[in-house]
């Protein structure tokens, strides 16, 4: 392949990326990590394509392929967003400068803070998708997690090493059980989970108000009602205590989220439970025919999805807000659908798409503050990205003819 001729170029890029990344990192610009990661990824792909044999080569190829559509989607969305800004009288260059400076350099900590809850809800949606289910109500399970975490956080006086895991677990389990009725209806009557979990999300949102008002607290300036702060011992550890140079607001929630993503990936690819989930998600009939209990797997998958989304709420309460606001439209559940879609339901991919969403949100705020470009432009860009990703089914449709040809070709070999 000609790609080998580009070897010096590739290695230069990789080394440069790694160098710049390291310099940035040590100069306390933590988005340098992204560059280092990019260098590692590039090396992996290049190595896989040129030196790798069989499995690693096909792995590199499928990795590249899976990147193709999201990258095209993001780049074209940024271009279209730029055009829209141009037409409406804003300078896209300064706006994007502000967006990326804000999201990656100045307020990168906000990006990370935004990403963590999205990873949990994204994992929730992605996991359900793997079982062929659409957990559209992650938002509701988020509220359950947040309410339970607040309640326990207010009253649970124990050493943090004990209390925090317990809070996560209890809140997660209750959020999971919030999906019990939708799961039961799905398995017993076939009621579609899109309808039931969405309804349950609305119920949870308004029900949370009642619980919030019942937990004690008061009004707080702009917010009609806020609970008292939870016990300090139940706060998540700040990143600062591990990395002294880290921003003071960033907490270890992002690490828990990444750990969770690895855990979900492990379950899906390496355990018999994950095997059954995938089999059920991709061909119910065959799974049933080979003795896999389809109903039970659907049931457990929806509950586990609720568990994951519940973590998102716990993460926000214990890590960031330390209290719960009434009538706050969190939106992490809805955005979780976006990041899961964008990542093609790959748990590891969800980490990166959540970061992207986080960067866009943080950068957007910075942009609207500094250059007065309306924040809605970020929402528009997000919408276009999603549209282009969902439009991958159009690409797939186009690619289908190509695939059919390939199939013919394969058959012709024999």
């Amino acid at each position, binding site marked *: 392949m000609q790609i080998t001729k580009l070897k010096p170029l590739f290695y230069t890029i990789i080394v440069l990326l790694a160098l710049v990344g390291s310099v940035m990192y040590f100069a306390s610009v933590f988005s340098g990590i992204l560059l280092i990661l990019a260098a590692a990824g590039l090396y992996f792909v290049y190595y896989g394509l040129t030196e790798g044999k*069989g*499995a690693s080569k*096909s792995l590199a190829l499928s990795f590249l392929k899976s990147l193709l559509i999201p990258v095209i989607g993001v780049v074209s969305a940024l271009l279209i967003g730029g055009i829209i800004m141009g037409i409406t009288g804003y300078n896209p260059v300064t706006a994007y400068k502000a967006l990326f400076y804000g999201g990656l350099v100045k307020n990168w900590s906000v990006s990370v803070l935004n990403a963590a809850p999205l990873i949990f809800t994204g994992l929730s949606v992605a996991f359900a998708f793997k079982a062929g289910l659409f957990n559209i109500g992650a938002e509701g399970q988020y509220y359950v997690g947040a309410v339970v975490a607040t309640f326990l956080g207010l009253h649970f006086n124990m050493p943090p090493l004990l209390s925090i895991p317990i809070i996560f677990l209890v809140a997660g389990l209750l959020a999971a059980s919030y999906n019990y009725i939708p799961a039961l209806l799905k398995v017993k009557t076939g009621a579609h989970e899109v309808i039931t979990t969405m309804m349950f999300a609305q119920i949870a949102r308004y029900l949370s108000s009642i619980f919030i008002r019942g937990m004690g607290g008061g009004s707080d300036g702009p917010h009609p009602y806020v609970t008292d702060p939870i016990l300090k011992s139940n706060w998540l550890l700040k990143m600062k205590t591990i990395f002294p140079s880290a921003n003071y607001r960033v907490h270890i929630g992002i690490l828990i989220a990444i750990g969770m993503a690895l855990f979900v990936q492990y379950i899906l690819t*390496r*355990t*018999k*439970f994950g*095997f*059954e989930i*995938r*089999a059920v998600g*991709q*061909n119910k*009939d*065959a*799974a*049933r*025919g*080979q*003795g*896999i*209990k389809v109903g039970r797997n659907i049931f457990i998958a929806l509950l586990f999805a609720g568990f994951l989304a519940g973590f998102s709420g716990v993460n926000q309460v214990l890590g960031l807000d330390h209290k719960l606001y009434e009538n706050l439209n969190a939106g992490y559940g809805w955005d979780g659908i976006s990041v899961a879609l964008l990542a093609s339901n790959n748990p590891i991919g969800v980490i990166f798409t959540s970061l992207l969403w986080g960067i866009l949100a943080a950068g957007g705020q910075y942009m609207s503050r500094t250059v007065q470009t309306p924040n809605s432009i970020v929402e528009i860009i997000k919408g276009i990205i999603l549209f282009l990703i969902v439009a991958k089914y159009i690409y797939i449709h186009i690619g289908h003819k190509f695939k059919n*040809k*390939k199939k*013919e*070709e*394969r*058959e*012709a*070999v*024999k």
Partner: protein
Amino acid sequence: MGAKKEKRVVLETKHVKKQFPKVLANDDINMVLYEGEILSLLGENGAGKSTLMNVLYGLYKPTSGEILLEGEQVEFSSPKDAIRKGLGMVHQHFMLVDNLTVTENIILGSEPGKYDFIDYKTARKEVVSISEKYHLHVDPDEIIENLSVGVQQRVEILKALYRKARILILDEPTAVLTPQEVDELFEVVGRLREDGVSIIIITHKLEEVKAISDRVYILKRGKIVGERETSQVTKEDLANLMVGREVVLTVHKDEKEVSGEPILQLEDVVVRNQKGINALDGLSLDVRPGEIVGIAGVDGNGQSELEEALVGLLKLESGRILYKGEDIAVLDTKQRRGKGVASVPADRQKYGLVLPMKVSENMVLGFHDEKPFVKGINLALETIKTHSEKLVEEYDIRTPGVEVPAGNLSGGNQQKVILARELSSDPDFLLVAQPTRGLDVGAIEYIHSQILKMRDKNVGILLISLELEEIFSLSDRILVLYEGKIVKEFIPENTSDKEVGFYMTGGKKTAEERA
């Protein structure tokens, strides 16, 4: 038919070549089709038949070469162009809308009427008149999903005729038909020929070529390797041309004494289908170890319900399924498999495999939670891999590796994956449904030999097949399934396909006509 003197060429290809990125699918194809003839295109799976037809039908563009229609060079950019020029194609998988009526399906895409209003009256009249003209009897108001596969195919043919097709391409038309339906199809095709319609039949079944066609092209590795007048060639010659080696068409089966207690007994089994009708209506049968019992029957007489009841996907209304003397009707699929009941499902892509999953994962599907494929809650990925690689070798499965999705494999190799999985589980009873549907000669031979091997290992085997030939060549006993009951038992040596066919149709008038 042979009396045609000035045969008019309706379709001709000159040096047609179709090159895919890595594969030459069609190479220098020169063929002619005469008016009012039935032409067979014979070849193994992957010989390039379907590619060639897709080129003719406008789905693919040829890399080079010319297509002449009525002497005039044509270039189709889509099937629409081809249809406009009088080509019609009936695909192996029907393109019908299940919940619309026959008439609606036939007119779909070229509805008569003004503006947005469909003139159903005219449409219906036209459908009726075409179906009468060609003796293609079908109720124009019936919903498609209520029709048998054979009648659905008839609707497909009507669809093409409604669009004024003068050349009809039939892709593997008998793959899904029962023997009776095949006969009816051949009658229809014969009538179309008399009416001057030219017909191309794509097939890999020698029987069919002999039975119906006037002329045959044999395709192999993308090239035409022979052209024969059907009347002047034997089945054996055709097989040799097609496969390029001697094919044993008759299965070699050792005589074997079968004795002992039955391993499986069905007693008065009643099963209801989704419509609430008794699909199995007091069915009783038994299978002894080391014996192959063949279930012959016309499609839709309870075959799939029998399969599902045995596997544990359908509940019994009444009756018992005794396996080694124990009633397993109360057990679920998993438990039955654990006791040594294996099955090869009729719809292999729907019930047998998870196509997007890896070959190795499909090899352990259903056994993935048993030793040695699982350690605690973790899958023993290494063991699964080596196990699958061993089976790939043992069953001669052509795949680039065990890590590729099962959907990438050809039909024959997909079936071998299922066979490998089921047979390697060391069953005592094996249910095989439609094991060779849609497969080529080489794969059929192999699969038959594997089934016989299991018989020699003293496994009790129940074979459900719509191919009477297969039933006859494999079975030690033949049971005829009709309307959910076993109506007759035969020993293959003491009967004929005509006699079995008589009982398969309920012994009604079709048999009298033939007698």
